[in-house]
């Protein structure tokens, strides 16, 4: 591909900076609606359920399960060589986010597998990745 590589690092803005700052301090946080209690990710300007702008943040357990996952066999960007797993993780508290499952072979990942957050430094930022909860092929 002759195009310039896609910029990879997240570019926090006023809405998402608190999420990434919390990651830097080893905490996974979701936005919480002060009016209806809805808990959601990614952060936004208002509650996507009731449109209230009165938002706070709530710390999450960091535990969840793999809702679906894929294994990249082709390298799209030289900074992220294949193979690797991208998963949609459903956190125990409800919100879902795209992340990686690390700490086991890609072939060991399964839908509904319990995972927990593991913060890793990459691309100059702290990324919330996930690893199998309760063992499962740690390298």
């Amino acid at each position: 591909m002759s195009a310039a590589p896609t910029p990879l690092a997240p570019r926090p803005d006023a809405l998402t900076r608190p999420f990434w700052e919390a990651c830097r301090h080893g905490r996974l946080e979701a936005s919480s609606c002060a009016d209806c209690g809805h808990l959601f990710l990614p952060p936004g300007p208002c509650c996507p359920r009731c449109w209230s702008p009165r938002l706070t943040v709530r710390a999450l357990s960091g535990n969840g399960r793999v809702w679906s996952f894929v294994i990249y066999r082709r390298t799209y960007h030289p900074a992220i060589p294949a193979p690797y797993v991208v998963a949609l993780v459903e956190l125990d508290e409800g919100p879902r986010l795209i992340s990686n499952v690390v700490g086991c072979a890609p072939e060991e990942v399964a839908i509904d597998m319990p995972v927990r957050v593991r913060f890793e430094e990459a691309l100059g930022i702290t990324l919330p990745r996930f690893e199998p909860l309760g063992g499962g092929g740690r390298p």
Partner: protein
Amino acid sequence: MSRRAVIAGVGHTAFGKFPDRTAWDLEAAAAAAAVADAGLRPADVDGLLTDPGAVQGVLDGITPHFLRLGSQLGLDPTYTGSEILGGAGSVAIVERAALAVEAGLCEACLCVYGDRALSGAGAYGYGRGDEAAFGFFGAAGLHALAARRHMHRYGTRPEHLGEVAIAARAYAARVPHAQKRSVLDMDEYLASDPIVEPLRRLDCCLVSDGAAAVLVTTAERAADAPRPAIPILGHAQAHSLSTYASPDHFDALPAGRCGPAALGRAGLTPADVDVALLYDCFTIVVLLQLEAYGFCKKGESGPFVEGGRIGPGGSLPVNTSGGLLAEGYGGGMLHVIEAVRQLRGDAGDRQVADAEVALVSGHGLGMNTHATLVLGS
């Protein structure tokens, strides 16, 4: 009597790799062909709607595509605009054209898709905002998440995805302008390189340079057209913009709401559809749509496509020109054009006998957008 929208003309360029051509001259050629097919002159065109495709549209920013093309075609229309709905854009602009001509906002609305996705570098491997940091690149990753879910929940097998790819290539072998005209067998499909598991290379659509256009006008205006005008019987859009926050975002396409709305407006049911032109950026999307549109039950699309059921001679002909998987990436406009050809009886040795009702779909972005047309002869 109320004004009834029809597709009176269709036209397209070849699809493939044309590094020496611009998207603009491809679009101008497709536009001229569609207007001529409708028996009209350029001066008759008073509406222009465009779908600029991924490279021109989503990735190059929102340069007003309609303005650039309208300027090059010398048009001063009474109705114009561009849609940025990803793969639903082409079907959506035909729908908008139908609404516009039925409302009397214009008489002859030209709908143009064009892009230079193959020669324009890096078209589809883009990262998605903050998710690029996790290596979540390209449309393949999103659709692989959906494929994995379907396999997990319903036991869908790679061979079921393979049936979709094989059917597309079997049809395209009968299409003179198709980008990929060689037939495919299951062994070759299964040996195809994994890209983003569970999707293989042959689950992914082609990338193409090319343009396609249709001319929408009223039945009255098209009464003397040289070729049969095809009525737009029904249309609808439905979208899932909440994306991952929606618990069934990857399990249920918005097509499940769009299909009944479009067929209902036409007074028809899935059983009335003679040929289905389903947006096929990835094989899994065809399976998901067969369920969403009610051609089979939820979870049963895998067994449904077994034995060549959607291929040539099958009971439900799907993507009879090979679609995005084999004819070429036409943004969905080639699907509209194939529907017109089938209903005109112009489809040569891929003609579906007695085709009277065609359903056309568009599906786009992060599985967010959907649009449906129901066309009748």
